[in-house]
């Protein structure tokens, strides 16, 4: 923060700001269009068999052949992802609070968390199927497992990073621990919590797909496994594109939420 800023930092609406905003949208779009064109050109110029690498047109055709079916499968994956993510938030944040509040509990819980996190999640997937069958439950649990750790770590770090002067301030007012927590520590941790949530949401979709690979009868992961079996590469690509869309929408949804809920955070996103 510069000492003498009286204007709202980075939120003016002059022509240069409008141009910046236009650039921040147009450049990524341009990059994407460019990539798709190069991909298309490559499939044409090198005459690549669509069985190996389908052209963008093949992928699009594969989607438009059965859009209802693919959107249904996307919805299944999306729901698993969001449910697992929300479960991780609901469990992760209270555990982070416990870790941040008590040194003893931190020493008990932290190594356990590290051990659980160090197990490759793909290795757990088959066991989850054994325990919970082919329904949604193992997918939600897998998403939870992937999301849980970054949420706990970031939240705990945020809760422990209360600036000394703010801690002194509430102390000098004779506040209770609860007051200090709700008035200062927790709000102060929120930007870091958001970092954890954004990391987690990117992993969430991966978790859902892993679980679907191992045993499922629905979802985009299931579609990809099926298309592999029938050598329908274009369908696999279409599914992957849909997964990408889900990931991006969820991530930017969280970013937008952050901007609405935490307008006081310095712009560094």
């Amino acid at each position, binding site marked *: 923060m510069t000492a*003498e800023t*009286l204007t709202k*930092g980075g939120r003016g609406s002059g022509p240069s700001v409008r141009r910046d905003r236009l650039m921040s949208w147009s450049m990524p779009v341009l990059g994407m269009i460019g990539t798709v064109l190069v991909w298309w050109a490559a499939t044409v110029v090198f005459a690549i068999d669509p069985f190996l690498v389908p052209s963008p047109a093949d992928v699009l055709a594969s989607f438009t052949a059965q859009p209802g079916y693919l959107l249904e499968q996307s919805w299944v994956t999306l729901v698993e992802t969001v449910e697992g993510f929300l479960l991780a938030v609901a469990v992760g944040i209270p555990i982070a609070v416990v870790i941040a509040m008590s040194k003893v509990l931190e020493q008990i819980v932290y190594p356990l968390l590290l051990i659980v996190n160090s197990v490759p999640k793909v290795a757990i997937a088959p066991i989850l199927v054994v325990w919970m069958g082919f329904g949604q439950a193992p997918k939600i649990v897998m998403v939870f497992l992937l999301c849980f750790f970054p949420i706990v770590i970031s939240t705990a770090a945020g809760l422990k990073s209360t600036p000394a*002067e703010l801690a002194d*301030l509430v102390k*000098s*007012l*004779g506040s209770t621990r609860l007051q200090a927590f709700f008035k200062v520590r927790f709000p102060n941790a929120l930007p870091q919590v958001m970092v954890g949530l954004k990391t987690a949401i990117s992993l969430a979709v991966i978790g859902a797909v892993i679980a679907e690979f191992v045993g499922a009868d629905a979802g985009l992961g299931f579609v990809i496994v099926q298309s592999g079996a029938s050598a329908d590469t274009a369908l696999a690509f279409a599914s992957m594109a849909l997964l990408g869309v889900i990931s991006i929408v969820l991530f930017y949804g969280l970013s937008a939420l952050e901007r609405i809920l935490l307008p*006081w955070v310095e712009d560094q996103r």
Partner: protein
Amino acid sequence: MIELRHISQIFETREGRVHALDDVSLTVGRNEFVTLVGRSGCGKSTLLRMVAGLQKPTSGTVTVGGKAVEKPRQDVSFMFQKAALLPWRTVLDNVMLPVEILRLDKDAHRRRAHELLELVGLAGFEKRLPRELSGGMQQRVSLCRSLIQNPDVLLMDEPFSALDALTREELSVELQRIKMEQETTIVFVTHSIEEAVLLADRVVVLSPRPGRLRQIIEVDIPRPRTLGHNAHADRVTAVSAELHELLMPAPAGGHR
């Protein structure tokens, strides 16, 4: 109002024991404005934190208003070197923080908050966020916050030292004016001679390592004081010079 009796403070550090304060005794009267000056490491901030109940002396007693200081109290407020504003709260809500924590009457104090903000020239900025304010404005908000519960004692730990020289003088003048309007006992830690002379009824000079009470200088220059030209410029200069000699070591080979 404030009584410090035989205060000593020893810190245990990795390099061994550090004698921070050694047998400091001081009495501050009601509505008096006392500045503590001294070089870095003379324990002046430590002394202030003891009065605030943020720290306990190794030996000696601290009383405020006749009662021993055991922990932070409502009638004593503390202003820090940093503005320490909550970035997610508006200016008004920052000023209201002590009211919430101390569970005081909100409506009455909201009116007081507006009055205080007007007093420091921040009327109209109530809805702004701290990051939209300059350093000087942030420190003004911090001042309002430390006055909101109408404390008997206001402790200030180098509150203007992070500001540029002009803003700093401006705020000192403002603090003088506020002090003349509000009945408050103020202890103000600084290493600025100018600030000490401008603000204090008495200047307490501490010697460094271990912090000992070196001298107390009465400043009987009429208020409001300024550093500019006025009828008392000579006396401001004289007291400044005296303080300067106490704080700066005599030049080598010179005689005092």
